[in-house]
């Protein structure tokens, strides 16, 4: 057993002890909830690990993909809203789709203009004009439709499908959006790509927050169903309240773990295969990889989409576990930067590192609130003993410590363990390099 594997086993064991410790100190239902969310976050961290660890792609728009996953599961698994289907809403939406198709055809047509001899500046002007006209055509249809649906039936409602299909749809929808974004943005260099993806995620947030007709906006969609019987169902069967939460959440955890381990297995296989080697070669030197005949651009698009699928599924799991889809609850800190901290601390380029980082950082993130609250209460009592006044609003202040702790953890990690706790393993030919 090499030292790297020993280290990983030790860290996972320590993590296990930590979770048991949390279970002893805090309540058990709380700990199981923590585990479910941590597992979902690890899945998202795996997604980012594919994009950043394998592909070197700077995706700072994770929040957007998590939101898309959340919307997808809310849309597919909520019950059907008959009020909407019985109104003129569907017809108006059909008109919107037709308008969108006409607009798309205009844009495609404008792009193809060089075929009939319109080139250069004139072509560019025509393209911009086509986009503008398409936008106006779309707006003329979407605005009244949105108004009408919001007035008659609040929102379009769901499709009433099983939750697991909703999770899958979250992945598919995220993949579709990733394809469009990747096509536009992936040519950009690191810093620019980071800004562009931040912008994309902010746009997705603005859209989902304000498209009340589709997502109910800030009114929030609830209750989003579970793939397994929820605590209320167990209580109806006569199980005690505490026990019902533990059983229901544990069975949810089992489903999430199946998804997580399945994804981990598949990714690990791909990673050690030729595909993974090719991706790493593109990451480390894309010019050399291109000269070896690899299609860098389409490979990067591929990896961006794969990563986004996992992020979308993770987002869907989070939403269905919380039982509520609240577009106002998504923040870049909680849903983008924390994932980066997970991957960097865990070890970029190592799947086990990403999963470890996901669980570990999520526990730190959640626990820093009660810990700092206890700390503040003690400091407050201590300083009062010296005649100072007590610290005001300890509870709300303790909550804000999470953000600070997160920043502290990543800066410490970058300084002292820049490759992460479980660093990337480079398999090299043994007869060439003996120091492995």
């Amino acid at each position, binding site marked *: 057993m090499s030292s790297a594997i020993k280290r990983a086993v030790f860290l996972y064991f320590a993590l296990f002890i930590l979770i048991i410790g949390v279970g002893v100190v805090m309540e058990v239902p709380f700990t199981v909830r923590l585990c479910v969310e941590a597992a979902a976050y690890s899945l998202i961290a795996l997604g980012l690990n594919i994009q950043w660890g394998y592909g070197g792609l700077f995706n700072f728009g994770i929040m957007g993909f998590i939101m898309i996953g959340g919307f997808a599961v809310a849309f597919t698994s909520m019950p059907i809203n008959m009020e909407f289907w019985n109104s003129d809403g569907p017809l108006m939406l059909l008109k919107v789709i037709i308008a969108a198709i006409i607009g798309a055809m205009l844009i495609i047509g404008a792009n193809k203009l060089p075929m009939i001899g319109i080139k250069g500046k004139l072509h560019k002007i025509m393209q911009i004009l086509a986009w503008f006209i398409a936008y106006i055509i779309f707006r003329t249809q979407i605005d009244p439709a949105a108004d009408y649906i919001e007035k008659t039936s609040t929102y379009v409602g769901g499709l009433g499908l099983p939750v697991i299909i909703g999770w899958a749809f979250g992945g598919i929808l995220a993949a579709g959006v990733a394809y469009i974004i990747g096509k536009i943005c992936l040519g950009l260099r690191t810093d620019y790509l980071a800004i562009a993806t931040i912008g994309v995620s902010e746009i997705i947030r603005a859209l989902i927050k304000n498209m009340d007709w589709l997502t109910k906006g800030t009114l929030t969609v609830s209750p989003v169903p579970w793939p397994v019987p929820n605590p209320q169902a167990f209580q109806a069967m006569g199980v005690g309240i505490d026990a019902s939460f533990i059983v229901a959440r544990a069975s949810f955890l089992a489903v999430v773990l199946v998804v997580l381990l399945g994804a981990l297995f598949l990714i690990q296989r791909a990673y050690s295969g030729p595909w993974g080697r090719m991706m790493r070669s593109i990451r480390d030197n894309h010019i050399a990889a291109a000269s070896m005949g690899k299609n860098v651009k389409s490979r990067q698009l591929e990896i961006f989409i794969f990563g986004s699928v996992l992020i979308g599924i993770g987002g869907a799991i989070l939403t269905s576990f919380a039982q509520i889809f609240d577009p106002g609850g998504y923040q870049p*800190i909680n849903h983008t930067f924390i994932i980066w901290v997970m991957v960097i601390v865990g070890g970029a380029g190592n799947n086990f590192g990403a999963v470890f980082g996901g669980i570990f950082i999520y526990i730190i993130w959640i626990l820093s609130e009660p810990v700092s609250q206890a700390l503040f209460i003690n400091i407050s009592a201590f300083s009062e003993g010296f005649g100072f006044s007590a610290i005001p609003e300890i509870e709300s202040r303790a909550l804000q410590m999470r953000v600070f702790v997160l920043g502290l953890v*990543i800066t410490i990690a970058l300084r002292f363990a820049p490759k992460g706790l479980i660093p990337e393993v480079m398999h090299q030919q043994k007869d060439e390099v003996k120091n492995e």
Partner: protein
Amino acid sequence: MNELIFFFNKVIISGMVLGSIYALGAIGITLIFGILRFAHFAHGDMMTMGAFITFILVAIATSLGLSGPLPMGFMVLPIAMVIAAFFALGIDKGFYAPLRARGAKPVTLLIASIGVTLMIQGLIRLFFGTKTRTFFADEPKVIYRIDIPFFDATRPISITEPQILMILVTLVAVLALHFFLTKSKFGKAMRAMADNADLAQVSGINTKLVIKVTWVIAGALACMAGTMLALDVTLKPDLAFNIVLPIFAAAIVGGLGHAYGAIAGGFLVGFAETMAVFNWAVLLRPFKENLPLWLPNDLSLVPTEYKLTVAFVILVIVLLIRPTGIFKGAST
């Protein structure tokens, strides 16, 4: 005529104010990128931090009973900028300098700047809570209404005192920066280093000192921009977090590493945002009888909720058509 004045109030004045704030923020980002070659994500939170420093100073000054001809926020601004500059130096020494010494890639510095963002934001929230504050709790916000005596206009041009001061202060800051960069020894050294760091070093330029000067300027300008933003709207912990995107858009549109480009980009993005959300139907009102009936009442290009998308769209268009920005930027 009233419609034109409305346009002036809504687009020209707001655009100038927004553009000034964006320009000041973008200069800092662009200078840091030019010298250190990384996108400094913590800049937005450095702006917020600057605004809070000013807020504390205002509170101290008011409690001492000081008052002056200008709003307190502007009176204490120079002191706040000095303090913010020291903070910026401290952040560099504590978090970025060790990484640079190790020879870390710019990408690592970028991630470190996110850590710094989180820490600044966490500390601000820890000490000040999440509530919204205003600089004008104790003093009135003077609004000037300039009546137009001709063209039978009834609506006055209205502009607040802080807005006038902001535009003036930005002008002074930009001119000072211009003379610093073109006339002073340090300014020339900075430009040389932005152009070619290695060459600058072998020519005997003290690159460590240049880096320090860069942080001082960036920190001071960030404090200025943050204070202005807080004076124009309100002060809250996530004040500038949301405008990191337009500021970066401004810096990139102007060409990263190019100080004048950042100024131009700042005003471009500022005006584009106010113009995009302006309801152009207002300007057509005098000709109402001659217009076709199907014309909707709302002719704004994007709804106000999507204001943020404007900066992004500009950014993407510029990156696709002219990746180096309007002026040629420094390349990585």
